[in-house]
């Protein structure tokens, strides 16, 4: 059976200025990554990755990004990601860094990894809590995230809020 196999790259976007994270848009990321591939790998790279390259998911609050590309060319895309130094949004250049945290074959594996990763991040935030209310809300968030619950709800892909 012929099936198009893709690779999903789960990445985290970090900005120098935390407030500019909220201005993150899918179009800005798409054009930024496409230009970075063209600069790093030339016309060949731009053409290879243009076949099936999309931004599947973008969470402006946590800075999580899910990119999809073909299985044959995912290394080209992956090796161009470290060279991105800024993203343009609304005419402004925001210096940023994209670091990849997981490569998966399907969206579901990336989702499973992301839930575990977010739970780890919440647990890392726990010692830095300033007040009891913050601590209680982080506790609740950690206990409430689980894949089973999500699978019962359907195929919605929302994570815990920070």
């Amino acid at each position, binding site marked *: 059976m012929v099936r198009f196999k893709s690779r999903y790259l789960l990445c985290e976007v*970090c900005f*120098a200025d935390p407030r500019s994270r909220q201005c993150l848009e899918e179009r800005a990321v798409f054009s930024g990554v496409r230009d970075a591939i063209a*600069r790093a790998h030339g016309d060949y790279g731009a053409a290879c990755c243009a076949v099936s390259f999309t931004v599947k998911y973008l969470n402006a609050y946590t800075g999580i990004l899910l990119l999809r590309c073909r299985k044959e060319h995912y*290394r080209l895309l*992956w*090796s161009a*990601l*470290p*060279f991105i*130094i800024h993203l343009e949004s609304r005419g402004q250049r925001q*210096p*940023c*860094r994209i*670091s*990849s*945290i997981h490569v998966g074959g399907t969206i579901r594996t990336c989702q499973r990894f992301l839930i575990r990763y977010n739970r*780890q991040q919440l647990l*890392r935030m726990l010692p830095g809590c300033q007040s009891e209310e913050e601590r209680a809300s982080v506790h609740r968030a950690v206990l409430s995230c689980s894949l089973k619950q999500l699978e019962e709800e359907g195929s919605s892909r929302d994570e815990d809020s920070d």
Partner: protein
Amino acid sequence: MALFGDLNIVNTTDKRKLKNVIETAAHLGYSTVAINHVVNLQEKKQEIGKPTCVAELFTSPPTVQGKSKPIKIITRLTVVVSEASHCNELRTTSPRTRLYDLVAVHPKTEKLFHTACMTLDVDIIEIIMTEKQQFHFKRPPVNVAIDRGIVFELVYSPAIKDSTMRRYTISNSLSLMNIGKGKNIIISSGAEKPLELRGPYDIANLGLLFGLSEGDAKAAISTNCRKALLHGETRKTAQGVVHTMKKTEVPEDKEEAPASKRARTDDP
């Protein structure tokens, strides 16, 4: 995979910036980080000073992402040599270099590269990344350096900042790979700001661009870093066999370091 290490974080006088960079490195997953003091002896009035006290930086070092241990911070000295007289500082008996955990040299000419590989007592040899290399690498000194346990370092932050630097970086590293076949290579950041750091898996992928094979690229950020660290320890402790500790009342007797620590071959 094994522990990741980033052995080149440029030392700045601004402590907060340095703290930010180290916290970012811990967030990205690096278990070991070296603060690099660069000394360029060609400029006047540059001396090798004392390393920054690591305990002053952090009361409690940040924990590494994905592990429960805190990040390990060590000190490193890089001496940029452009004349033969500068090599005097790097002899074993030099008092200042003993204070640092790792010693690196950045040779600018072919003769100095030859001396660094054969005779100088260093752990890391830094390869020029910001300009086209004037000389070609030769096989004999590179092989001697690999036998001695010296590690070659590729710095990737110039490549991220500028496009022409990217070309020099890739061409210099490809010429090194041709001669050295990818052994004893580490890739490190040379970062001054937290945004210049990249995650370890991204760097392993960059290693593929630099001409390394997949296994070598993964080793470049994990096992070879550990190799350099152990080499630095053996420099301090007489080839890893003797480890002396200062005690307040009675001087501790010599204790054998475990055999697994002796990672490098002895000098003939």
